[in-house]
């Protein structure tokens, strides 16, 4: 698999390259700036780009912007964002085109390299992966309306929903919760019914549906008249 890495910290970039090479990935370019990233993405059209959000020249969100620009030109180009922090706004922007093939992880998730490699493969295959912290924030936001559809979920269904939103497959969820895959698919049917979402067997589309649902949160709505 051909991968582009964009990270401005030398040690971290070298570490990523070493880790990925050891796992059999081909690194076609490793760059330390946003313009370099854009050139590499458009020039090499890799199978996946691993991008630090904060890159030179302005050291703000240049990495994200470059990646989004590239995705406009090459629809569906798989992008995995790495960052020291997660922001719902960035997650929204990343998911805005609904095309899948995106991931957003905290940098230190790289430490568990098996999981990290799983994520890379999922994103490269057009899947969607969100850091558990993003999902926690989204769920917190979605459920703060108190009487929304989320409150109708059972505790177990909530756990399943959380793992689904992180982008895990049925089997991964089953492993994680120590239940059978069949039980997972039963829960997921129930969740989709309760949230009034169209059911889907396709893992990727399922993740996108769940994330879209969570992001269309009532947070933008009016304040309910409470007094």
């Amino acid at each position, binding site marked *: 698999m051909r991968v582009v890495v964009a990270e401005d910290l030398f040690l971290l970039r070298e570490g990523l390259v070493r880790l990925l090479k050891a796992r059999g990935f081909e690194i076609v370019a490793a760059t330390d700036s946003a313009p370099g990233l854009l050139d590499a993405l458009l020039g090499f059209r890799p199978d996946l780009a691993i991008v630090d959000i904060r890159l030179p020249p302005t050291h*703000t969100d240049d990495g994200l912007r470059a990646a989004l620009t590239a995705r406009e030109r090459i629809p569906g180009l798989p992008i995995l964002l790495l960052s020291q*922090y997660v922001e719902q*706004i960035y997650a929204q922007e990343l998911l805005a085109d609904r095309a899948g093939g995106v991931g957003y992880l905290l*940098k*230190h998730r790289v430490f568990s390299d098996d999981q990290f490699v799983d994520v890379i493969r999922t994103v490269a295959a057009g899947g969607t992966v969100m850091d558990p912290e993003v999902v926690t924030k989204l769920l917190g*936001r979605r459920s*703060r309306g108190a009487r929304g559809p989320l409150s109708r979920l059972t505790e177990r269904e909530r756990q399943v929903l959380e793992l689904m939103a992180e982008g895990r497959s049925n089997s991964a969820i089953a492993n994680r919760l120590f239940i059978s895959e069949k039980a997972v698919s039963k829960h997921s049917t129930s969740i989709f019914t309760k949230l009034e979402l169209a059911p889907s067997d396709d893992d990727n589309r399922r993740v996108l549906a769940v994330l879209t649902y969570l992001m269309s949160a009532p947070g933008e709505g009016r*304040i309910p008249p*409470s007094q």
Partner: protein
Amino acid sequence: MWPFPVDGAPWPGGVLVALTAVCAVLAFRAEQARDRPVRTGRPAGRIGWPVVAGLVGTAAYGSVPALLLALHNTAGTGGYIVTVPDLQPDGLLAAALLMAGLLATTLLPSARVPGRWVLPLVAAVTGELLEWTYWLTHALTRSAVSYGLTPLNVLVGCVSIPVLAVLAGAALRRPANGRPGRLAGADALRSARWALLLPAVMVMTGDLLGLDLWRSASPGTGIGPAVTSYLVGLALLAAVVAGLVRWPRAAADLAALGLVGIGAYDVAQSGFGQHLLEVRKFGSPGMPAPSLDFEMVAHHASVLGGIQGAVLLALGLWLLPRTVLADAGRLLGRGPDPALARRVRELTETRADAVSSAAAELRRIERDLHDGAQGRLVTIGMNLRVAEEMIHSDPHEAAALVVEARVASAAALEELRGLIRGMHPPMLADRGLGEAVRALALDLPLPCETEIDLPERLAAPLESACYFAVAEVVTNAVRHASAHGLQIRMVWTAGLLRIEVVDDGVGGADPARGTGLAGVERRLAAFDGILAVSSPPGGPTIVVMEVPCA
């Protein structure tokens, strides 16, 4: 110049003098209370347009009877009028203005702009008192016809009160950008407040000089000249009000000098009161001339004139060192400019605050790093060192130690992220104030509506101060207000950033108690920003922050 009834019982004149004295005492007390050190939040001397609106309302109100009299005098019935020429008995307007001015200065607490209905109410009540005193006086002394007391006139007089109060209230509507107006910018001094007495001083002076502009036209004047002089009088009054808004300090000086002059004149005149009573006939009266105990009435008139003169003189003398002498000292280079002195004091305070809060912040970061990340890095280093030694002898144990080190490094990162967020949120650095506040709103455990209209980027220190101010206010709302929802509005117009945070919680937030809001106020003060809180028990709480930024 008071409308005391020289043709009968003198008590209403006494009531007016007493009322003025009470107002003056209230004003003195307010002045005393203001001499305590003022927080930097809002310039203490700010005189709002609302006050001026109330004043104009009172003035217009006070002039209604004058107009009625003018109209009546030209109606041709005729009657008698009893005057004390040097103590001008028709000065209803002057009395109304003086009282409204004193009350208005009393009601100008430094901390907040008076409520929308306070001043029209004061104006209406003052006017109502005067109105009834005036009519009652003349009804009691049975000279009603000669003074135009017809049911229609009384009705018009009474109806005009609520109408003028409503007009004055409407004038208090906040301007489009939501900023309360103020006299001559933020630098209006505390003493400039006394400029509000100038309209009264002008009318009193006019009366003394024999200008018939603000009192009833002389008996027999035609309706044209009567109305014209009424309108000219109002126009002059409006000009004076506009002038005092523009040059409040000079207006305050003039008012003080005028009060001294008029007071002294009245006191001096009261000694000659006995000889000045005069009965004038106008038209063809249908009744006999009023029979008066001239001796007694003139005596009352001179005593009251003396008292009112003494009150005015005392007020003027008390104001002199606060206005004229202070300004003269400044002009002669003997005293510091109060505006500059206050600015220096403000800057000294806010600089000290800024320096000490920066130092406190550094101490907090140092402590957090020391207790958190630094400690964990030491542990990681030790673990790795032991693992290094054991890697051949006990690879299993070594691997476990390495895993432990990895977990510890993740925890250290987590702590560092929290710390960085507390120092300068990444979103603020990446996208600026607007997006950072939107991100903050998204992360809240409550529904939060945002309405943000900002230019691309503001100065970095300002962005940071405003962000943390909003974060603190929002945190307060979430923690203490039991709110169900929040609204954050941020608008930048004409060099002023206005931030509003509204919650529907229980209210009762007070910047004076607790350190949260006071901290925000101090933080904003370093940028000449201000914080205003409205939080009645039961809510809602509205926190408004305004920061100038070009």
